[in-house]
């Protein structure tokens, strides 16, 4: 798979430890371990702590997963419960 060579930089924006946030993080970690083992970095940003970061990545929904690398930037909002959608959204699996 071509994606093997690509380093994935993922950012998950949450606001405190809400059910959705926790679920999203757990889901993300699970998918990454399954599909991108060793090729990814997950950065979790808590907007309650760093609200100034919301503007930069155009965050309005919580939780939001932002794929910073590879370009183009893609966003997935929600608790990431639908694996298929997340994988397509992150371009791990072709549409």
């Amino acid at each position, binding site marked *: 798979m071509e994606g093997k060579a690509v380093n994935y930089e993922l950012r998950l924006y949450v606001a405190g430890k809400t059910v959705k946030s926790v679920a999203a993080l757990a889901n993300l970690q699970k998918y990454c371990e399954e599909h991108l083992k060793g090729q990814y970095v997950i950065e979790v940003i808590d907007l309650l702590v760093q*609200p100034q970061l919301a503007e930069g990545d155009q*965050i309005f929904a919580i939780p939001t997963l932002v794929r910073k690398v590879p370009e183009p930037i893609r966003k997935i909002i929600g*608790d990431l419960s639908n694996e298929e959608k997340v994988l397509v959204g992150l371009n791990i699996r072709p549409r």
Partner: protein
Amino acid sequence: MRRNKTSCTMTNFHKQQHSFIQLPKTPTGITGLDEITGGGLPKGRPSLICGEAGCGKTLMSLEFIIRGATQFNEPGVFMAFEEKAEELTQNVASLGFDLNKLQHDKLVKLDHVHIDRSEIEETGEYDLEGLFIRMGYAIDSIGAKRVVLDTLENLFSGLSDTAILRAELRRLFNFLKEKGVTAIITGEKGEGGSLTRQGLEEYVSDCVILLDHRVINQISTRRLRVVKYRGSQHGTNEYPFLIDEEGISVLPVTSLKLEKEVSSSRVSSGIPALDDMLGGKGFFKGSSVLVSGTAGTGKTSIAAYFANETCNGGKKCLYFAFEESPKQIVRNMKSINVDLQKHIDKGVLQFFASRPTLYGLEMHLVAMYKLIHKFKPDAVVLDPITNLITVGSVSEVKSMLVRLIDFLQEMQITVMFTALSLNTIVSEQTDEGVSSLVDAWLLVRDIEYNGERNRGMYIMKSRGMKHSNQVREFIITDKGLDLVEVYLGPEGVLTGSAREAQKLQEKTGVALRDFAVSRKDKEIMRKRKMLESKISSLQAEFESAEEELNKIYLEEQLKQEIVERNRAEMTNMRKGSIDAENKIRSKK
């Protein structure tokens, strides 16, 4: 029981009247809007501004933020869901607002919320906490008192889960209220009767303002209406508003009351003879004067004279020209010995020329309001109002003029309208139906007689003053305007050369009569002289006769004296000194 209740509510009512506390309001700073809403938008609550695309929602809300920051020292956050911050900055730069500086001074914060469906994938549950945090951060970072969300409905096009959105919207409005900010939410007008596409009006219940952009007869007019304003009185009409280089101006163009101050001081019309017809003093200050007449009867000249007179008195005059350009008027008026240019140079006269079709009637009104407010004239001339009919129906023109007159009277500004009456219409018919509104109505009319056309002026009405009921001939010469009394002779009313001819004829008659009279006078003089000489000769005769008589009388007396003396001496000689006593006695 019932009665009790009523009396109770009555007292409550009175109490409320006494201790009536106005709903706290946040002034928008937008010209006119604060008047309509009785002070501004509800403080600390969200208001909705809705309307079609391009009706000025964004500008109005942005002006709210900018005015707040610059005039009321209330920093504001503008969250744009549509336009980018740079675009907004550019857009309002043309209105003289420097958003970059305001942002730098931490008075305004622009935040562009970019929502692109193609970039976003939705999976599972989410909420808009991110937006809240972002907003809260923006508000806290500059201590904002005002917030605008423009256009919130873009969320709906970016996100598919409307159920979540709706729930979040409700939370959003609560959030805004909790923050204590006065907020404006804009929304696109929806299909049918709904105010917004997504029914935002359900959430914003305090104040809803509807903007409208209507094209009638190819002329577009922007209008504003306060649909609802909970807990406050507000103007319910549609008010036109104007976007120009100074931002938005809304005009509450109908005053509901007829409680204007009136002045009994007079202003001259500039034509002494006309003033004479108006009780010798001219128009009332703050009154409205209509000059109507057929084409070429000198309406503009009368108006220019009035403007000239106003300026000569050191007062300011604003001249709205709907037909001729200012330069044209200045040139033309020079031909009747009126120099308007010097007043323009001095700054007491200002022309404002616009084609009636430039914008709709309401816009004309708005533009006039603005100019009048800015220039603060003592007199206003509208020349001619009939041209306005090209942009509206008679009734519309009338309603506009009613409001204009209303406004001018309130400002104590004397206004002169000119109106062209067409020959096909009976000229006594009211021009634009305003003759009932005006205080004085001058009618200039053609009088055709004897192969020439002359102008006659009537005063159709002049409220509150004695005025002449006579028709005068109105003449325009190189020296200016004048009114001449028409000749009322046995052959009827004569004007122009017929009048002159009649006058000449009269002059001849007078000369002849004068001649006859002087001849008779001379004859009398001669006779008198003759008689006088006769009298003097008789007098002389009488004097000589009298002298003769006197002479005789004196001689007689003298003779007698001498005789007596002689006799006495004789006696003395005879009697000696004994008769000395007698002598003395006789001497005595």
